[in-house]
């Protein structure tokens, strides 16, 4: 990958400051000819991480595919807020079929394009975490094992937001959802449950798996671009905060996403054919408290130090497991 992470200390983020970069290094979002595939006027909430994540990802994919792109979409927030009939925010050919079949529909689209000799047209499937890690998991795994020529992008906001914030298998331990209410010393979502779909995707030995976060535009775009250079089954899971579902300020979406990564709770990495080839190292490790305190879904953990400790331990484990810190920096803060 040619992407070199640059942090702009003037603003404290990695997503602005394009004017300081060479033109070739600037993001797709910073260009005048970006495709605006997901156009303005949709009905997403203020501060919606998914709307931004989808816009960034699809615009980058459009650039990489020379605007020859078809997308399939699982049922969920992204589908609902972009296509209230008779309006559509999509400027690409786009199909929504069901909650659990976005990957299979994409397989079908790719097969049809191959038969028609139009393999230059690339196919993306997308969905939220519920449509990906739970109800769509069978079709997703099938698409992976057949190595169908589809890039699946999961916008992970860690619960079923469209139906009113219920727990999914991507909901982290302790998080309050409508179906995991904290009660006294009992956490919201139970610790030790849920599944890590990027690692499961890797177990299918598919050409490319990556995690990304909506706050790191350069990294997200680079990963989508890398994925689009490859063929076969590819998977990118993008961390996208949900202000409404998480009880966070809409203005904090990017900050929360950044802190999730910098605390070690959401490790960013790339894997090819089942092997990790790149991890995003943490220059400064943020404390998990800083991340948690911005979200009401974790408010109860501050009354229960053992829960806070458990979350810390998860971050520690991620840092060890993925080597997120340089050896000399160690795990200790």
């Amino acid at each position, binding site marked *: 990958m040619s992407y070199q992470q640059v942090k702009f200390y003037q603003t404290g983020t990695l997503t602005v400051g394009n004017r300081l970069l060479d033109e070739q290094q600037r993001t797709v979002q910073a260009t005048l000819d970006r495709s605006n595939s997901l156009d303005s006027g949709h009905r997403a909430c203020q501060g919606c991480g998914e709307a931004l994540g989808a816009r960034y990802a699809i615009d980058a994919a459009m650039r990489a595919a020379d605007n020859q792109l078809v997308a399939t979409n699982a049922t969920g927030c992204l589908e609902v807020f972009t296509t209230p009939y008779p309006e559509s925010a999509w400027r690409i*050919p786009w199909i929504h079929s069901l909650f659990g079949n976005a990957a299979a529909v994409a397989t079908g689209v790719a097969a049809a394009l191959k038969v028609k000799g139009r393999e230059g047209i690339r196919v993306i499937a997308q969905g939220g975490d519920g449509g990906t890690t739970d109800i769509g998991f069978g079709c997703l795994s099938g698409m992976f094992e057949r190595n169908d020529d589809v890039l699946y992008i999961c916008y992970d906001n860690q619960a079923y937001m469209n139906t009113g914030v219920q727990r999914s298998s991507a909901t982290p331990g302790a998080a309050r959802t409508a179906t995991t209410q904290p009660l006294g010393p009992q956490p919201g979502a139970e610790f030790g449950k849920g599944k890590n779909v990027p690692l499961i995707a890797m177990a299918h030995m598919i050409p490319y798996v990556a995690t990304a976060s909506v706050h790191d535009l350069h990294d997200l775009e680079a990963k989508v671009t890398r994925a689009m250079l490859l063929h076969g089954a590819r998977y990118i899971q993008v961390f996208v905060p949900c202000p409404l579902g998480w009880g966070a300020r809409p203005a904090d979406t990017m900050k929360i996403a950044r802190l999730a990564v910098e605390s070690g709770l959401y490790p960013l990495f790339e894997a090819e054919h089942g092997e990790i080839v790149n991890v995003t190292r943490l220059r400064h490790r943020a404390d998990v408290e800083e991340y948690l305190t911005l979200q009401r879904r974790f408010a109860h953990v501050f009354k229960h130090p053992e829960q806070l400790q458990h979350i810390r331990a998860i971050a520690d484990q991620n840092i060890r497991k993925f080597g997120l810190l340089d050896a000399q920096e160690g795990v200790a803060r």
Partner: protein
Amino acid sequence: MLKQVEGSQAVAEAIAMCRPEVICAYPITPQTHIVEDLGAKVKSGALAPCEFINVESEFAALSVAIGSSAAGARSYTATASQGLLFMAEAVYNASGLGLPIVMTVGNRAIGAPINIWNDQSDSMSMRDAGWIQLYAESNQEAVDLHIQAFRIAELLSVPVMVCMDGFILTHAYERVEIPSQEQVDAFLPAFEPRQVLDPANPKTIGAMVGPEAFTEVRYLAHHKQMQALDLIPNVAEEFRQIFGRDAGGLVSGYRHQDAETIVVTLGSVIGTMQEVIDELRQAGHSIGAVALRSFRPFPLEALRQLIAPAKRVVVFEKCLAVGLGGVVASNVRMASHGLSVPVYSVIGGLGGRPITRASLTKLFTEAMQDSLEGLHFLDLNQEVVNRQIEREEGSRRSGSVAENILRDIGLVATAKVS
């Protein structure tokens, strides 16, 4: 060309000549032989360009077909029984999106208790899903209906289910006239979709529709089926002109014109019935039959005209609306509304129970004497049923119905031997 072939092989040959572009396969008895044959044909290159995709479930099979059809490819899959139920959500979705997918259903019972044999509970469970449903009487008709199915589906942008009785047709070796590629090409032009996923003309397909438009969308789905009532006979006529034989259409009659008693049925059982009717006619009885070839759309008017002169109608079907009676019978009663023709409902052949000439002769004789009850179960073993009812009344822990009955039948058999 006349061939002595298995029904599934014959259907696979017919599908192959329809130049399918994407075929999705998931194994379930009794449709497996169809997709196995097609898989071999695709691999040999005979169908190029065509993609054959082994999917992980029936839900995926139809979902892949939804994607490929929406991207403009002629798409085919086949299923049966539990598989059809597992893809139910996609069945409704395919018709809602107006995608002209053709799917074979090798009719089979639905569990529990699990049963691999033939009845029509599976396709009947999807009767209101917005698909056109055609029922084949023979393997020849299965071949012919599949070819017509693509034409009907693509003209209307509605998916079509071709239903053929599992094993009785799918696994039976019969003499079948396999049409030539030239005939099929003359009958079935290339697929021209109404809407297609194409970057040159980006469209949103499958948007959310609220109360302001949903009724109209559903009405138009019904309207398309009403259009199909006109189209299906026209397609059958075009077919006759090119292939030189009658197949398809809404209904077909057998010695019904002057019949006092008309049996209404669908699927392969009509073959046995024709023989029984011939025998009864020879004995001086006035009886005939009508087979429904299209169940959706339901040919209310065409059927009404055929049954209007009769004194009584006997609906014979291989499915049961538990808690009501006959599914087909309910529909036939709509067609007979206002006529003074009693409609008897007979359920038979469930889970593959043989429908014998002897049973049918007895049934029709009783019907002609008007001594049938309104809802009749052919060859029901009342003794076994009563024993289970007694068992349930006598004990809270009466156990599994299916296993008790199997045990009872075993005991009965043993008693007979000893």
